[in-house]
């Protein structure tokens, strides 16, 4: 079993990386790999209910939520980043666990490969 953490840091509006990080993570379920995903910096706004790339005519973010549930993908967000971007309306469908910035070091070091996207 390999443990992989995908870290996505760019916003879901205007860049493809949030969608692509999830898609890459889901692909890992065909193998004996445990993928997890961490929202960092601007990517954290993904978990706000109001955030909607579809409002700009871009690919919706909501499509990944179906698979998070289906594959039971673990998602993390950092408390300090949630506060920084003033996110008050958390979309529970991401099932995100909130960790502090200090806890990220431990999370990273528990993995075989950490992939920033």
């Amino acid at each position: 079993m390999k443990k992989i953490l995908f870290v996505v840091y760019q916003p879901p509006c205007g860049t493809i990386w949030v969608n692509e990080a999830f898609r890459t993570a889901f692909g890992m379920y065909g193998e004996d790999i445990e993928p997890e995903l961490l929202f960092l910096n601007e990517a954290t706004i993904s978990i706000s209910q109001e955030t909607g790339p579809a409002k700009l005519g871009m690919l919706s973010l909501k499509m990944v939520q179906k698979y998070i549930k289906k594959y039971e993908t673990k998602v993390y967000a950092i408390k300090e980043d949630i506060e920084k971007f003033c996110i008050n309306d958390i979309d529970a469908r991401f099932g995100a666990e909130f960790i502090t910035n200090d806890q990220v070091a431990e999370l990273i070091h528990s993995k075989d490969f950490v992939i920033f996207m």
Partner: protein
Amino acid sequence: MAIEPTKTIDERGEVCPVPDVDAKRALKKMNAGEILEVLIDYPLSKERIPANSKKDGHEVLAIEETGPSEWRILIKV
């Protein structure tokens, strides 16, 4: 002779990597001799699901075009 699948997964509307991952996961849970039917409309999966199934030691019984850009793949575990 019509082949009777043991299990069917309908992956129409799904794109990479979902049809491939679901087919692989379904095959893992099945017993030897059982047949999986996979319905897809994502063209690249039409090539990849049979190729990867063979690699995993399964037998690809059929790849049928069931409609415009729609396929049915039958795999024997």
